[in-house]
């Protein structure tokens, strides 16, 4: 039981419990906070996997921007008060949980039956600072993956325009106020 493995197991337990708590919580704001905890733990996993830039981007973008957006919308809509679930189909929820467990069983079987998928070899000394650094990531982003990079910038533009268009108020309310010309 190396220290790495103990840290991994403790953090994995926290991540899974946080995800379950997000699912089962009745208050939407608690769900958001549990998901932020889950993202922070996954960010620590990224640090353990020699991906420091991705870890910081995860904290900044996912936990810092996307979850705050969720909180804004929850407080805007007053969605933290939930009613008791009264589904039209009473067997839907137990069946969903059962099928989820079947999916997990199949995935776990596929993973475990392959034997141990590569235990990564320890990085050499010169690799420890180079692998996962912003320099290496940027080198790939601006050479091999330049076209997808530009396409994602266009995608963000489209998303911004879409978000504004979807919530824009219609201007038809202003028309009745005009005085009729005689």
């Amino acid at each position, binding site marked *: 039981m190396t220290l790495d493995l103990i840290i991994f197991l403790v953090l*994995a337990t926290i991540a899974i419990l946080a995800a379950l708590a997000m*699912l089962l919580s009745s208050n*939407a704001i608690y769900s958001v906070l549990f998901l932020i905890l889950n993202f922070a733990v996954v960010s620590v*996993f990224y640090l353990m996997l*020699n991906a420091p830039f*991705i870890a910081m981007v995860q904290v900044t973008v996912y936990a810092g921007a996307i979850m705050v957006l969720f909180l804004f919308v929850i407080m805007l809509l007053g969605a933290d008060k*939930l009613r008791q679930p009264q589904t039209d189909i009473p067997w839907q929820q137990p069946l969903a949980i059962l099928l989820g467990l079947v999916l997990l069983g199949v995935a776990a079987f596929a*993973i475990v039956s392959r034997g141990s998928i590569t235990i990564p070899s320890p*990085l050499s000394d010169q690799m420890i600072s180079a692998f996962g650094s912003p320099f290496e990531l940027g080198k790939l*982003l601006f050479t091999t993956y330049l076209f997808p990079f530009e396409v994602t910038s266009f995608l963000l533009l489209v998303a911004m325009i879409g978000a504004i268009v979807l919530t824009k108020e219609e201007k038809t309310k202003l028309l009745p106020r005009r005085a009729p010309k005689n």
Partner: protein
Amino acid sequence: MVPTSYYILLSAILFTIGVVGVLVRRNAIIVFMSVELMLNSANLAFVAFARAFQTGNAVNAAAMSGQVFVFFVLTVAAAEVAVGLALIVAIFKNKHSIDVDQVHQLKG
């Protein structure tokens, strides 16, 4: 070193929790957060494999591609959240409810 299969198993567990969340919950925002959980678990699998394929003394471009892809998934998730939440706000303005069971006008 923690074996890569442990990370992939954790990714599968988180993904399943996300799937069950989408199916079981009726609050549209919780459903959306479960989708984000699924994307996040896929990211974890990408980064785990990227680390596993880094062997040798030169940075393997194929291994770094795993992290580049995580970057793109993160960007797409951010764009999707912006548009999705705008949609939820627009639906709420109309129906004053974010219960997904209430959005059934297209039912045959």
